[in-house]
């Protein structure tokens, strides 16, 4: 049986190239794969499109990636939090593009991508600015916004435990976007707190089957949201 473990951080993220679209898990700070993001920072890639809920906190995680000039476009639901000052500075300077997507629509667009669908009809945003330019479809006597599926070249996700096949379980609200993002990328990279032997995870409680995970990197537990230096 193939073990999907990456021995080094560079092994895990090294195939990411300039211009890639990357789904990045997390809501607030829980579930953000900070170590993988640091690994991408270290690669020095440019013009990445990042799909994630928030625009980064302080100087770590997504904020570091933005600050180091790696990101050409951000697709998110909540860009203007006070802790996302790094993003705001680059946005105001015209150095980064932004697409705002309602949070439920964002997670559903990603799930649709993961499920091989082209899009879906949603009541969300009907009649609002955020539906501008999107097709409006009538069905069952109601109007719906047609939203397109969204996939990544890569997904960077954070999980609690994995087995050698990449079967994942998560921890509390650090689950958030991670399971749907794992489904929706051509190449899914997980950072996990701990890896366990095959058969240690009950097949009934696995949230992300290993078929969605291409490689994983073991980080151990760490305090989230701490600023780390480039490694």
């Amino acid at each position, binding site marked *: 049986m193939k073990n999907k473990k990456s021995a080094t951080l560079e092994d895990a993220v090294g195939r990411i190239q300039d211009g890639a679209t990357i789904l990045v898990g997390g809501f607030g700070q829980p579930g953000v794969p900070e170590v993988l993001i640091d690994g991408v920072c270290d690669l020095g890639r440019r013009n990445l499109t990042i799909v994630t809920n928030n625009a980064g906190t302080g100087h770590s995680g997504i904020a570091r990636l933005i600050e180091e000039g790696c990101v050409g476009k951000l697709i998110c639901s909540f860009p203007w939090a006070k802790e996302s000052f790094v993003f705001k500075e680059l946005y105001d300077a015209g150095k980064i593009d932004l697409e705002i997507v309602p949070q439920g629509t964002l997670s559903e667009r990603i799930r649709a991508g993961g499920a091989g669908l082209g899009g879906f009809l949603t009541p969300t945003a009907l009649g609002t600015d955020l539906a501008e330019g999107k097709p409006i479809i009538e069905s069952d006597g109601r109007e719906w916004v047609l939203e397109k599926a969204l996939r990544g070249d890569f997904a960077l996700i954070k999980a609690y435990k994995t087995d050698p096949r990449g079967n994942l379980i998560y921890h509390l609200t650090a689950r958030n*976007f991670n399971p749907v993002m794992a489904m929706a990328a051509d190449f899914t990279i997980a950072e996990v707190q701990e890896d366990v032997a095959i058969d240690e995870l009950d097949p009934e409680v696995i949230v992300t089957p290993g078929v969605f995970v291409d490689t994983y990197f073991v980080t151990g537990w760490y305090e989230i949201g701490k600023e780390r230096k480039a490694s």
Partner: protein
Amino acid sequence: MSEQNTNLLTRLQIAARAAQDMEDGWLVNLGIGMPTMIPAYIPKDRDVMFHSENGLIGMGPQPAEGEADQDLISAGKELVTMVSGGAIVHHADSFAVARGGRLDCACLGAFQVVANGDLCNWRLPNQKSGSVGGAMDIAAGSKRVFAMMTHTDRDGGAKIVSERTFPLTAMGVVTRIFTDMAVISITADGLVLDEVAPGLTKDEVQAVTDAPLIMDNVGEIAVAA
């Protein structure tokens, strides 16, 4: 007027009044700000569960000192706890709850509410962009939307209006409005003034409401001592 009026409810009093409308067995989503003050005021004999759109069903209060888990937060990104019988789901399933008709009520802050139920709470007219978060999904999907806000803006202008002037969050969704002056229901017949704050008159409320109020049967908001 709103700047001087001493009969206006405080934010906590608005939350306390809204809490009385939370029915036994409901699943409720709370927006940031005033809505997060509701749980403390829910009558003890009612079992109300809170949904946090980041995948937490059964959100509890803030953790006691030393008992926080860095991975357990609310949609407002505060550290929280979980109640007995709660569950964790992923984001797409969490919004399935919200849009799929299983959210009995969403209590949301508002910039403007239109007499037809339109909710405006995600972006100011002069802002080029806003942080929409889950507001549009939750407002569009919840069985009921309760808007909570000051009755007027800082300049005393009406926030309850006949014609929308703010960017829309969701069409025709608001069912009840809780302000520092009144409780107003949005019905097929129009806006119904249900209750006014102690010391205020119906006409004082109508004067700062830019839409006609039906005032046939108006009570007084019960305010705890």
